[in-house]
């Protein structure tokens, strides 16, 4: 690493360093600066000089310091052992760093991303003489109890014949597990790891049309604004509206196989919270700890800004690697605004001409490149896997018209807008049913039809109409008071209020309510619409609305999310029966 000098420092301005006398440094090459060996990346080359962004605090760097080239782009190490580890933005394992530099992260510290000592149980799946093309599977390693890690031919090898492969046994990630012969006769030795540059999407065979929803267990999302596996969504919201809580909740309960959680420029304590909480939580589908499927990247707000910019790419590259093995991966990026601001900060230091609000003109291009790495893909080995991106956006002042939110909206197909007034009244998740939208309805509709006896689409339509009506009625109420409305319209307000407390709100701290199964969601929505239908009929017959809302069974409906277990669908039958009887009884009294 210290052999190839590619230039000398000319000027230091925070995390941006100008290099002179540049020899053969390449664009995006990873370099090390000075005797402290700080990690950097070449971002510009011109007339014998280069601009480097440094991933660590630049204090102490002097003009004249040597810059050493590494000969490769900023890349990540991929192989067994990624899951359950917490990395910083440039894939340094934070737990291992603690052993080296203590509670604080000192500069110039490096540590291999994967544990090079640990032995993994490798099982070959091909034999000597097999013809392999790039991306095909050589063997398998049981990485965690739920993740079978597939060892693949690196995408850099187009075609090869297996000359030698080890038998079943325990190997470290450094051990050679196979020797392959390329068409030109060269031999290549393969280990269980491969490197991949973070800014380049990993190759796939084909992009497939989306078909399945990503079930998150949050009712407002699954039932009203569903996201498809392989889809992209933005969650914008001012501070305190619950972006992080929503992301945590999805990371915990969604039905993806692998979760990549990127804490990009966020709070240190939040990452500590994830580290503390996830290992204790049990996945309701597999009965195993949630940490068994989670990769964490923590580049907190006080860590260097360039590494924050890189963290998003580090995360998505790891996600693509698991997608290539045939897994459904969901990425939580919290928050993409911090990443955009890192771009702005670096662009400003490089004295580039700013566009909107100081952001560089290439911001929309970068956002598009990032979100386009999502999708449902057929991998090179023929497996089907997906990467879904759930990106939080933190608009300044909660104003959705700012550049990052606006440009993100152009490249995502689903939008969960968080609303400050909902958050203030502690209505969580504070996802607004007015601002949010999804373009995946057509794609996921067949799946939902199958799982709801065909009622889902109609019910969703009905409740969305009621919510729209409510907005108009609320405007009238604000002018003349609720008494001026006839009971039939007042009842719409009543049903919508019930829908909000009983269905849209979810309590992240309640054992029962924090995750809602598909079956329970369907029944809850059914029941509320049933209440609307029967109630409206009764009102038409002359029953006063006050009598209906005072029914004891309504209190129970309001609390059903907290009281009825996910699997206990029979309880809904009973509740429905009681609702029918209660309203019939009332109707009976007033008919006479």
């Amino acid at each position: 690493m210290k052999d190839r000098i590619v230039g000398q420092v000319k000027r230091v301005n925070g995390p941006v360093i100008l290099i002179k006398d540049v020899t053969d440094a390449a664009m995006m090459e990873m370099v090390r600066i000075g005797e402290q060996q700080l990690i950097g990346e070449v971002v510009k080359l011109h007339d014998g000089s280069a601009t480097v962004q440094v991933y660590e605090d630049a204090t102490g760097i002097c003009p004249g310091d040597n810059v050493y080239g590494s000969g490769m782009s900023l890349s990540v190490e991929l192989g067994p052992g990624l899951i359950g580890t917490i990395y910083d933005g440039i894939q340094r394992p934070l737990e291992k760093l603690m052993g080296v530099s203590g509670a604080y992260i000192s500069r110039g510290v490096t540590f291999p991303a994967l544990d090079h000592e640990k032995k993994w149980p490798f099982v070959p799946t091909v034999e000597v003489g097999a013809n392999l093309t790039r991306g095909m599977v050589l063997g398998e390693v049981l990485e965690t109890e739920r993740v079978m890690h597939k060892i693949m031919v690196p995408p850099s090898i187009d075609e090869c014949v297996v000359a030698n492969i080890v038998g079943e046994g325990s190997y470290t990630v450094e051990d050679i597990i196979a020797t392959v012969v390329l068409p030109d006769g060269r031999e290549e030795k393969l280990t269980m790891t491969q490197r991949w540059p973070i800014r380049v999407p990993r190759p796939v065979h084909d992009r497939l049309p989306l078909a399945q929803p990503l079930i998150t267990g949050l009712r407002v999302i699954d039932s009203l604004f569903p996201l498809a596996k392989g889809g992209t969504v933005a969650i914008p919201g001012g501070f305190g509206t619950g972006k992080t809580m929503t992301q945590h909740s999805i990371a915990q309960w969604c039905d993806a196989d692998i979760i990549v959680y990127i804490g990009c420029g966020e709070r240190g304590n939040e990452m500590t919270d994830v580290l503390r909480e996830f290992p204790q939580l049990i996945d309701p589908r597999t009965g195993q700890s949630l940490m068994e499927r989670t990769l964490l990247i923590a580049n907190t707000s006080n860590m260097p800004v360039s590494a924050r910019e890189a963290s998003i790419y580090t995360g998505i590259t790891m996600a693509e690697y698991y997608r290539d093995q045939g897994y459904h991966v969901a990425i939580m990026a919290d928050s993409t605004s911090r990443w955009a601001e890192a771009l702005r900060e670096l662009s400003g230091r490089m004295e580039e001409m700013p566009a909107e609000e100081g952001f560089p003109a290439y911001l929309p291009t970068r956002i598009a490149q990032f979100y386009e790495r999502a999708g449902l893909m057929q991998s090179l080995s023929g497996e089907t896997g997906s990467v879904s991106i759930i990106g939080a956006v933190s608009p300044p002042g909660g104003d959705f018209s700012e550049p990052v939110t606006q440009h993100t909206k152009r490249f995502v197909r689903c939008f969960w807008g968080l609303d400050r007034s909902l958050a203030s009244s502690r209505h969580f998740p504070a996802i607004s049913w007015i601002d949010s939208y999804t373009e995946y309805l057509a794609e996921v509709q067949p799946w939902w039809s199958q799982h709801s006896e065909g009622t889902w689409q109609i019910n969703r339509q009905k409740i969305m109409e009621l919510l729209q009506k409510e907005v108009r009625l609320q405007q009238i109420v604000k002018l003349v008071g609720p008494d001026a409305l006839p009971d039939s319209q007042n009842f719409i307000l009543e049903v919508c209020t019930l829908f909000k407390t009983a269905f849209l709100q979810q309590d992240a701290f309640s054992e029962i309510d924090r995750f809602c199964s598909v079956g329970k969601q369907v029944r809850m929505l059914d029941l509320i619409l049933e209440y609307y239908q029967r109630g409206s009929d009764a009102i038409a017959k002359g029953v006063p609305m006050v009598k209906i809302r005072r029914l004891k069974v309504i209190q129970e409906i309001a609390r059903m999310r907290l009281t009825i277990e996910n699997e206990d669908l029979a309880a809904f039958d009973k509740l429905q029966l009681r609702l029918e009887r209660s309203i019939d009884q009332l109707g009976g009294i007033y008919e006479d």
Partner: protein
Amino acid sequence: MRTKEETLLVHTDRLLLSGREYRGTSRIDGPLVYMRNTHPVGYGELVEITAPDGTHRSGQVLETSDEVVVVQVFEGTEGLNLPGTGMRFMGEPLTLPVSEQMLGRVMNGLGKSRDGSTIPQGAVEKDVNGQPINPTAREYPRDFIQTGISVIDGMTTLIQGQKVPIFSGNGLDHNKLAAQIARQAKVRGSSGDFCIVFAAMGVKHDVAKYFIDSFEESGVLDNVALFLSLADDPSIERTITPKTALTLAEHLAFDKGKQVLVIMTDMTNYCEALREIGTMRGEIPSRKGYPGYLYSNLAELYERSGKILGRGGSITQLPILTMPNDDISHPVPDLTGYITEGQIVFDRSMQARGIYPPINCLPSLSRLMKDGIGEGMTRGDHPHLANQLFASYSHVKDVQNLASVIGEEELTSLDKQYLEFGNFFENKFVNQSFTEDRSIEQTLDIGWEALSKLPSEELQRLSDDEIAEHYGK
């Protein structure tokens, strides 16, 4: 291209050259001094400046290149001239000698004595810029701090190791509140070694005096270290004040195991000083002229709070910032809110109605509250009660809006009950005196008393058992 031997030579040279004095600067612009023809100087190095009259000042390298070095002078550039100014590059970053004896002292923004007395020099020199805490080394904060102020304890509970700013406006009672918190804050059931680090950036003499007097009155002055950079001190000094204060706080908390409360006022002045330097250097501004790195810069301060595994101590931050024109979407409160773990928001109309503390609990928030309250920490009914108070009080606001259109007389009887609840909540729960120190049980009981003004079927966030136990009692 230099060989390895030559490289080594350069490094030895640099070590020999650091400390050497250069005379004659090429340009002075505001707080910045430009120096040409120096040896290679490191980014962020400490600089000692000798003014023509022989006095010394300190500065830091803001930018370095093989042609010119840009130095910011913390004490300001008044009286410096081009030929007569000397500069010594120290070859190391800005450090602060820290020791426990700094408690009870009044210092300037650089940690030097303000009254001329010598500050006892500690053995430990610490880099004022600090280093990021490894997230895996953090301990998740969950110890409840009882401030004795109902609206904080009940609704936006403070946790030891948390950072919660007070978003205030000019002329509001934020100083009074900070002083009351400093006096009353305690972790129940622990006799932790408690101290306060106070950093003032660009505040008025009266405000500084108010704090000193109030610390003295409550008898804690010996446990307070004050770093004062007042309104008439050079604005550049404000950019270093919170860093020196936090450097001492880190020493006290993580080396000495103390529970440290850091009060920083006023963060808006700090940000304005950053803007001043940024503009002076011709940087490309972002929102409202503030530099693009304001978020990172604020994060480097706020993230220096928390707890570290196995170190015992904690840093709790209470930054105060005045929102220009009471605008919460102004860049300073906005960026702060994205970094801190919640916020306490002041409301001018509540102060006008004579409510102290004038905290509007709806936009206020404590992010760490969820894990610090409830059974075994405060009381079992606390989480649901707080939730219900938020929901009901937020409905009061809707009813008040409605009443202002159609008149109070036209409201339904239920809505009238809500108004009554709202009045009780603001005047009895939120409102309390400067000297009143309520226990958490008292606070929760008053909360229940307020909710008892509403019919029990309106209380859907509370469980039946909780209602049976506390409602109307």
